[in-house]
């Protein structure tokens, strides 16, 4: 993509420097912050304890957690879809989902139950958005998972559309236990590292903690506003 335009920058920034009573800042080193409490959170705990904390937190964010062994992922997702009485699902084009068990066999099983399965297909362009809008369940894999807040972190890409975790009424995240870290700090540190290494980071990174909600009417919580109304996490015991 060609470089974008920057307009009216010099005057604007010169004025800031002038108001601050100094010349323009040429180079600034980010200081070592005196206090860094974020790294202390759950620091001395085992990864099993993080899993416990994650499950506990999900109770507070209206999200069901279903645990399964590595071999049972396809079966567990199929049962969940059945419970929701969903007629269609859409998932990322993601080899990790295939490997986890959402494979050909799973798709056949869905077809037998009369559930339409769609895979995000970049060659179809914006048609994917229309499909996602009409689909009942969206399924993605969790790139990083946060114990403290019950959060899945999703890195978007051409095969991993933003709409899959957003437009369908129900959202299912496939989460290997090994992806769980204490909190947001570990995820943002990874992203920071990628930036430092000169990589281009995904155009959209979402930290998702349960279904959408609002308390805008009389401060009373309603689950399900513009995004998914329900969320289920499938937690894989892979360690």
């Amino acid at each position, binding site marked *: 993509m060609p470089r974008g335009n920057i307009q009216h920058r010099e005057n604007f920034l010169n004025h800031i420097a002038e108001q601050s009573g100094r010349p323009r800042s040429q180079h600034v080193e980010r200081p070592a912050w005196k206090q860094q409490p974020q790294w202390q959170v759950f620091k001395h705990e085992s990864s099993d304890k993080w899993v416990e904390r994650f499950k506990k937190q999900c109770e507070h964010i209206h999200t069901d957690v279903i645990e399964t062994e590595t071999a049972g992922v396809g079966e567990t997702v199929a049962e969940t879809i059945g419970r929701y009485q969903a007629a269609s699902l859409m998932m990322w084009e993601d080899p990790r989902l295939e490997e986890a068990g959402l494979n050909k066999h799973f798709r056949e099983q869905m077809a037998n139950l009369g559930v339409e399965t769609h895979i995000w297909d970049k060659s179809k362009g914006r048609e994917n958005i229309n499909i996602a809008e009409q689909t009942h369940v969206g399924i993605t894999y969790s790139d990083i998972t946060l114990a403290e*807040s019950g959060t899945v972190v999703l890195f978007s890409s051409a095969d991993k559309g933003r709409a899959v975790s957003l437009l369908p009424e129900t959202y299912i995240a496939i989460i290997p236990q090994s992806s769980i870290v204490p909190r947001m700090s570990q995820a943002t540190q990874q992203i920071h590292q990628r930036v430092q290494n000169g990589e281009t980071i995904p155009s959209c990174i979402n930290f998702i903690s349960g279904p959408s909600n609002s308390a805008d009417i009389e401060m009373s919580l309603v689950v399900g506003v513009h995004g998914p109304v329900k969320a289920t996490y499938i937690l894989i015991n892979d360690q």
Partner: protein
Amino acid sequence: MPLRVGEKNFENRIHTGLEDAFMRGAVRSAQERLRTRKQESSEELGDWEAWRDLGEEIRTHTLNHLDYYLEQLSDKVAELGGHVFFAQTAEEANDYVRKVAEEKEAQKIVKSKSMVTEEIGLNDVLEDDGREVVETDLGEYILQIDDHDPPSHIVAPALHKNREQIRDVFRDKKGYENSESTEELTRFAREQLRQEFLEADLGITGCNFAVAESGSISLVTNEGNARLVTALPKTQVTVMSMERIVPTWEELDVLVSLLCRSAVGQKLTSYITGLTGPKGEEDVDGPEEFHLVIVDNGRSEILGTQFQSALHCIRCAACVNVCPVYRHVGGHAYGSIYNGPIGAVLTPLLDGYEDNKDLPYASSLCAACTEACPVKIPLHEHLIAHRQIITEKENLGPLPEKWAMKMFGSGTSSPRLYRLASKQAHRAMRPWTKGSNIPNGPGPLKAWTNIRDLPAPASQRFRDWFANRDREDKS
């Protein structure tokens, strides 16, 4: 809708607020809920004070080097193919967005919640051009369809409305036929707005924090509307006020953690969305074109002054939620889209003292705001500094105060006058005294006794009592 909203006269606004029983009840219960939740979620961290220190240090460093970080941010955005426009004034910002909308021939524009676009009055400008602008945050949507009722709380803009009022607004404006249950009302808004998202040509967002190192912007939401605004339309415009920036993703973590806990007592809101440039070349969803508008609109005048830390604000409204004055008068009484203690500090800085001279007095200086602030802005000290400027430099002090100070000044400057006045006080006030109180004072005392009793002057002056006591001791 510009910075200043509603009725012009401060006292009228206060009276309207005090007389609105529903609003006062709603404010009270909202404050209690939000405050309790914040307390629980910050206590659970164990070392909240260390988090606040870190928040303050990050904000101070970033604001001290704002030109550097904004330069880095804009370079990164441009590298990714996004466009950056630096707007000194509200007009410049509005003109730019207006031009983008024109170029894209945008009929329908969807917006997620943004205070700075309210401040610069962007919607009016776009609507004047015949474009449809749809607010998609549930609270903002309610206010918008209710003929642009002003927001009354930074985080929960429709706090002053109850569910019956909202049902009526939906019925009158949108043909809603169901009950006042919050679930049904929300469901209706979801259905109405889903279609708008799918049809929109342009999406406009605010920005909680930009990340300088990667040219990213972040949006902190619960409803998911900001995700829709940035995933579906082909063009995205993000309007950010210039101080809302962090150096790297590591600082984003800290400020987002402080924001979510302080604003709503959540560890993280349902969605924290980090957006970097327009969509990737092969990406299917996300905007093809991305514009970042960085707005000054008076903020740079605050840099380098004693009020600089007011720019550290992360708009969590924790100060609003603990303020005893806000609790009584509600958000509309401030007459500004920025209400509560931070509004009383910020509004005169952005809009001048002339029209906002009463705001720094809408505080009991109890300092609960300062204690609640997650980035340690000394809010009550700023309010005192404002009062000093208003009375000493601008000569705009409130009339009763000027009058009282003048009387007190001349009364106390002469020992003879002071003796006379203090001797006569008890007798002079007798017609209005009931027991030991004055429930309905005359003239300038009325403002005080309208809301509480004034203790009557004692029949014996302290000086006389002291002199007598001395005499009795000796005898």
